[in-house]
């Protein structure tokens, strides 16, 4: 390491330390939640997640995809036409004999519901599950006005009794074990018989809440969908409580965000297909209720127990639909947050998230909302501070993208919000982040640590130029301590070792295939170039053996590192440069082959957001993951015998999260199998390392917890372990103490 480089590092570290960026509190909180709630959350979310995959398999991926496409179109159109649909709902509900109230914010909504309740001389209110009422703190608001309010969804009831907040959008109490609920209920209610089974607890709750429903004056529900044309609401439940709350008392108040409106019954169909399948892996919920209140069902008057006709109540039914804005109009006008309003709150983004599976919504959530999309909701409804509490838990692994029934680009929303948090400024202000390690050029507010990871390419360049000395220095205890204290890089992690000779240097002036079948640019992503050039060389040899002329150009990073830190301007800058550099190669008829999946995903997914459409499409069309490309070559007649065959050798393969989102896991498996390897694949969503994430001190234990699920799958295997991503191989090596390589190194000649 040169003197200037060392000086830079020292200055970097001391500046960072002076900012006292070390989030010990986060680490403690995560450790506690891993221990207290992790097992329960893991079992429940993984169950939902696995069921989701099964139910989608049953109806076929294609059909599911059709519904997703349609659902997204409907939501996009409905949000676009929202003001008009709101007007339509006002009319149709009024025609039915009900009232619509648009609440500007939480206080406004609370006040209205309280007034309606008081107008009905209510003492007791029963509720079915509604996240929107959690958002507006409705229970607290009504209690403050002296009302007795009960949650009738059993999960919400548990939370109400425990005085906790929901840990999941769909299963508010899924962090609690049966034993914990037994203890809680026995302490609270002192029942005559022990409540030591799920059955006993359920029976108790049914009786207890049944009495409260019978004596209720007002029933409050949410609404999963509001149908503008008919003034109907759709409710999804499994317990049957929503219908009871809506039909037993004669006053029904439904509270929903304004974004829940869709035009008519016709548009409900794809959502009816999607919602339960995505949420809990059910083909349809037990109860899909469509109500166009006031309904014809007679209200029940339990005060006249012997009167026929359900007590003979002659009270008119009264219905109020409270549509809550609370920041949604602004979200609608925000190009990056708008998609959040398409969310149907199925929780699939939480269930498919490896970090969420470990730590749950009490860490991975804000004031109200939990899981991947919570960042969008919290940023829009509560503000950036609420989102900042947990935004960094999204690693951008993108597994939620395919899970989301309305195809929201959830990682992008997380990235945008991260960028805004970094800037600490209002959205919309133009700022330019300067590329480089120079602290002086730093954007005000952007944490230095993010800049450090975001500029990993520069770190790698310096590290490689000075390797192996840089590696030695970096591994010295005082340096590691300084990195930990200053940048929060956990001492328990082994740092990447930079190679003195980069892939680009190795390839320079090298002869390749004459008269090739195809011409290829092997993209030297930062990891392949500086840290793992061997896998790059293996890729070059493989492609050449299959008849390709291969060039390894000296081009820059994809922008993945800055993007993952929420440094969008820097990422865009990198994307533009790379697109320009690769453009010349595309002009020359070359295909772009990428080894590192996170770099490929950048080009194929995120560049859509960062580059002009035509530039993005051209690059997207021309770029391939290395095994995807090899697969294509073999399909088109290239002879596989030039590669290293498997002869039945066992291989344990972990694909990369972002590679799987692109649908590219199967190509590696197919090629390995064609070459005679016996392949076992992992089925965890992510390795838990996720670029810089696993290096950060406060997340180290979470990262290891996630990684252990992967390690468990490969633990007792005598197969050769291979993985596509650098992060994945690092994580596997750390946890299994076995070598993990990129699969291209197996098959290369």
């Amino acid at each position, binding site marked *: 390491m040169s003197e200037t480089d060392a000086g830079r590092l020292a200055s970097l570290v001391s500046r960072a330390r002076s900012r006292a960026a070390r989030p010990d509190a986060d680490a403690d909180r995560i450790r506690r939640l891993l221990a207290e709630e992790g097992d329960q959350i893991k079992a429940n979310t993984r169950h939902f997640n696995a069921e989701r995959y099964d139910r989608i398999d049953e109806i076929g991926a294609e059909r599911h995809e059709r519904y997703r496409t349609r659902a997204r179109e409907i939501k996009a159109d409905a949000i676009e036409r929202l003001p008009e649909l709101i007007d339509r709902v006002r009319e149709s509900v009024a025609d039915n004999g009900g009232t619509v109230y648009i609440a500007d914010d939480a206080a406004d909504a609370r006040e209205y519901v309280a007034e309606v309740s008081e107008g009905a001389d209510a003492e007791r209110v029963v509720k079915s599950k509604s996240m929107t009422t959690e958002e507006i703190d409705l229970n607290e608001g009504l209690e403050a006005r002296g009302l007795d309010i009960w949650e*009738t969804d059993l*999960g919400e*009831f*548990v939370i109400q009794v425990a005085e906790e907040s929901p840990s999941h959008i769909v*299963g508010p*109490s899924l962090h*609690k*074990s*049966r*034993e914990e*609920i037994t203890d809680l209920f026995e302490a609270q209610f002192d029942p005559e018989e022990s409540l030591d*089974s*799920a*059955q006993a*607890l*359920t029976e108790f*709750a*049914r009786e207890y*809440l*049944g009495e409260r*429903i*019978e004596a209720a004056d007002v029933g409050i529900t949410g609404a999963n969908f509001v149908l503008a044309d*008919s003034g*109907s609401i759709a409710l999804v439940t*499994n*317990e*049957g409580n929503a*219908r*009871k709350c809506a*039909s037993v008392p004669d006053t029904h108040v439904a509270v929903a965000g304004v974004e829940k409106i869709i035009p008519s*019954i*016709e548009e*409900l*169909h794809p959502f*009816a297909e999607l919602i339960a399948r995505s949420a809990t892996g059910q*083909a*349809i*919920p*037990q*109860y*899909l*209720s*469509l*109500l*166009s*209140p006031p*309904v*014809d*069902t*007679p209200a*029940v008057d*339990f005060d*006249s*127990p*012997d*009167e*026929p*006709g*359900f*007590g003979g109540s002659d009270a008119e039914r009264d219905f109020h639909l409270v549509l809550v804005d609370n920041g949604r109009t602004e979200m609608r006008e925000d190009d990056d947050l708008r998609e959040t309003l398409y969310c149907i709150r199925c929780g699939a983004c939480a269930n498919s998230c490896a970090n969420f599976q470990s730590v749950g919504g009490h860490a991975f959530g804000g004031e109200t909302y939990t899981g991947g999309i919570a960042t969008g909701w919290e940023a829009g409804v509560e503000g950036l501070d609420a989102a900042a509490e947990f935004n960094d838990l999204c690693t951008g692994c993108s597994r939620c993208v395919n899970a989301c029934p309305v195809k929201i680009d959830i990682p992008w929303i997380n990235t945008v919000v991260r960028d805004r948090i970094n800037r600490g400024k209002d959205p919309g202000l133009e700022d330019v982040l300067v590329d480089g390690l120079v602290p002086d050029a730093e954007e005000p507010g952007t944490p230095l640590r993010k800049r450090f990871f975001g500029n990993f390419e520069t770190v790698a360049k310096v590290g490689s130029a000075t390797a192996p000395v840089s590696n030695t220095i970096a591994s010295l205890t005082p340096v590691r301590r300084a990195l930990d204290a200053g940048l929060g890089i956990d001492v328990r992690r082994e740092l990447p070792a930079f190679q003195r000779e980069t892939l680009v240097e190795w390839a320079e002036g090298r002869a390749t295939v004459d008269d090739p079948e195809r011409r290829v640019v092997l993209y030297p992503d930062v990891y392949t170039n500086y840290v793992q050039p061997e896998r790059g060389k293996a890729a070059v040899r493989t492609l050449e053996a299959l008849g390709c002329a291969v060039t390894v150009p000296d081009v820059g990073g994809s922008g993945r590192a800055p993007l993952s830190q929420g440094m969008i301007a820097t990422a865009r800058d990198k994307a533009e440069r790379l697109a320009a550099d690769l453009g010349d190669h595309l002009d020359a008829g070359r295909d772009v082959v990428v080894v590192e999946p996170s770099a490929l995903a950048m080009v194929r997914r995120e560049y859509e957001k960062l580059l002009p459409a035509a530039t993005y499409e051209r690059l997207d069309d021309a770029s391939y993951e290395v095994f995807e490309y090899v697969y294509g070559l073999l399909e088109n007649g290239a002879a596989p015998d030039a590669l290293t065959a498997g002869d039945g050798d066992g291989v344990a393969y972990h694909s990369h999260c972002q590679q799987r989102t692109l649908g590219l896991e199967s190509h590696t498996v197919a090629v390995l199998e064609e070459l005679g390897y016996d392949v076992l694949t992992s089925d965890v969503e992510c390795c838990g390392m996720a670029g810089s994430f696993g290096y950060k001190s406060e997340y180290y234990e979470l990262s290891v917890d996630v990684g252990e699920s992967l390690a468990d799958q490969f633990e007792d295997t005598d197969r050769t372990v291979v993985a596509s991503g650098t992060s994945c191989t690092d994580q596997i090596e750390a946890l299994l103490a076995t070598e993990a390589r990129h699969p291209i190194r197996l098959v290369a000649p």
Partner: protein
Amino acid sequence: MSTSPVREFRRSLRRVDATSSVVEPAGFDAALADALEEPAVGAPLPFADLSLSDHPVALDPSPRELRAARTGVTGSRLGIADLGTVAVESRGGGDELTALFPERHVVVLRASDVRPDLESAFAWLAEEFDAGRDSLVFETGPSATGDMGALVQGVHGPEAIHVLVVDDE
């Protein structure tokens, strides 16, 4: 794949833990008598040729009867074959309450009203909405919860469902 809709419907009902039987119209009364556990409440059936009046089923029950009933009988004009779903409509006779309070829900449904899937059910639904019948519940299997640490059937709704399919074809 040409199984009759009713056969598929019954298979789906089994999958969602509901039972079913099929009867000729002439056998309806006997079959219903078999399916009832007393005391029972009911909502008038929406079919001209089928009635609950010869059965020990309280129509327009008092709240006490509703609470005490072990069986609730309603008629449904929709079955969904591949899901095992039935419709419970909001009517003045209190179908919703009848289907929800007692621990056992007996559904009377005509074979000709079984539609293949959710898509065809929504086509039917659109016509119903046009005709102003726009409040109903799609009910699929007994009410259930996983919130108490394991799956339990019978929460705020019934824990058993029996569908009596009247073969009118």
